[in-house]
């Protein structure tokens, strides 16, 4: 591992993923921030390409220990550059070891990878990630429906959950094509037992449309903003 000194100072904000049906938070996604809550993009700008994967690995370790310190009582969603998984042996094993050491169960860790990143070498990715699934971790596909891929990704690899990209969610209540696309996604995921999370939900109308189509898991400003170094509470519109 490269010395941490070469990396910018960073910390995390946490944003809940809520289950509307039960009125509870099922997980927090750890979002990297600067130590003064600067946006993630600023942090990544300061990391050299060659060190990116080590940085990526380090982020997960710090996120877990911070979440544990804050008293995490549910799942934790952590991001992964899928290329890091193929480049480094320890990308996930170090994450698991850290979870063990701070008393967070492996089953409560969900690794998020973006659709566009894994589509190129889906077979290789599936093979390496599946090793860790037997250790109990969950896999979520982030930004689903955003890029060039789509449902066909699910032919070769079935994650535990997908997060429907916010570009599809935005104004979905008034956009026919987006509605048609999301209905197709829902149908396929249901048939395959994959959980669906609507991500980036900002308005009541967006929420209601998704809810009426049977989506129960949500993330977005409408429920809770990311909170810096805190595990925030969420708003439940059905209460």
């Amino acid at each position, binding site marked *: 591992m490269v010395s941490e000194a070469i990396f910018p100072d960073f910390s995390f904000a946490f944003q809940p993923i809520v289950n509307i049906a039960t009125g509870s938070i099922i997980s927090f996604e750890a979002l990297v921030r600067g130590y003064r809550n600067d946006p993630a993009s600023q942090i990544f700008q300061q990391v050299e390409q060659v060190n990116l994967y080590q940085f990526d690995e380090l982020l997960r370790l710090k996120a877990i220990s911070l979440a544990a310190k804050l008293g995490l009582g549910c799942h934790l969603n952590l991001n992964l550059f899928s290329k890091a998984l193929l480049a480094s042996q320890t990308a996930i094993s170090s994450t698991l070891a850290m979870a063990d050491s701070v008393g967070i169960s492996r089953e409560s860790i969900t690794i998020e990878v973006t659709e566009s990143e894994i*589509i190129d070498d889906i077979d290789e990715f599936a093979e390496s990630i599946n090793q860790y699934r037997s250790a109990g971790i969950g896999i979520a596909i982030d930004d689903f*429906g*955003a*890029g*060039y*891929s*789509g*449902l*066909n990704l*699910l*032919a*070769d690899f*079935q994650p535990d959950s997908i997060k429907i990209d916010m570009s*599809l969610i935005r104004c979905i209540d008034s956009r*026919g*094509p*987006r*509605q*048609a*696309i999301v*209905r*197709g*996604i*829902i*149908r*396929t*995921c249901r*048939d*395959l037992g994959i959980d669906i999370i609507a991500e980036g939900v900002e308005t009541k109308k967006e929420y209601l449309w998704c809810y009426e189509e049977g989506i129960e898991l949500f993330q977005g400003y409408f429920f809770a903003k990311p909170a810096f170094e805190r595990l925030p509470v969420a708003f439940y519109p059905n209460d």
Partner: protein
Amino acid sequence: MVTLIHLIYCSAAVQPMQESELRELLVKARAKNARLGITGMLLYENGSFFQVLEGTAVVVDRLFDEISQDVRHTKVSTIIREPIAKRAFGEWTMGYSSVSQQELDELIGLNDFFSKGSSFTEITPGRAKKLLAAFREGRWRTKVKYTLSPDLGADAKKLVMQPATMMTPKVSFSFQPVINVANGTVKAYEAILCGQHNEAFPDILPQIGDIEWSYFDTNCRAIAISMAAKLGLSCDLHLSFIARRVEDAQAAISASLEAAEKNGIEPSRIVLQIDQDKLIGEREQFAKIIEEYRGSGLRISIDHFGSGLASLNLLALLRPEMISLDAQLVQDIDKNGPRQAIVLGLKQTCTDLGIDMMAKNIETLGEFKWFVDEEVELLQGNYIASPAFEQLPSPNIPLA
């Protein structure tokens, strides 16, 4: 509908053109014209240019805009721009010159096509021909007074350049039916490109040179259309769209429409199958081009849907009339849960968007039955009927 026009202009070279410069211009212009489906000719004599451009209005106008801005010439005057009923310089092939064989032998830019002995007299009678005759007689010579004393040795005395090359594509087509199981009819035939002797297309690919490829890419659909018409096509026609570059898409679509019209096939019976993997990064541009042709009734299908880079977003962006499922999704679908789930999800989206879904590459009874049970109505594949060389084959299975 497709408006064919010719545009004839003259201009003056800003300075005497060297042989090498003319040659360079010739080579580039031929290749690009072939790609754009533009025919015509270019004459150069002692500092004067005279050019006939024929093709679809939008394509000709755009090219002419570009040519007008070319710094190698000036005093560009449009002599005429008007609709024409058909091309004077060839029906998908072209090439005529205005000078005797002996003169030709002295010309720069001589190409194999001149030596085939085509002559000016073979140009279809019409305005282009009259104007060419006028040019020969000395009219329309626009010149600039060269400040440098012209090096007459280097300045080609007379040059006839053919902007596109004659090509008889060594290709043909097989046809495979698409059936509609809901009403038991043949809905369409897909024209599948092959060699003249029914060789698989990849086998003849290496024989197609670069310029030929462009020409061919623009015009092969026209060949398929006229062949299908001759075979008595009475249903829809599915044509693959292989434009390698988005910027050529316009020319290729125009050429297809032009051919449809010529062969008495309504554009609404033509479905252009777009291989979505080829569109990456240029999808917005492509969507715009398609939009321009929507009014003609021509339909679009996205092919190989559900393969590597397929995206549901593409449906919203391109709004195709049809998609066809990728072979990988179709294969063994009756035994493969994830494929079934994906196809049903896609079907949901397509139904909501009013897009027809079609399954190709059906090889087995099991696959066939699965689609019939799930009410996917448009089916194609060897199980139903294999492609037949230069024929419109009937399905092997009884249509309900």
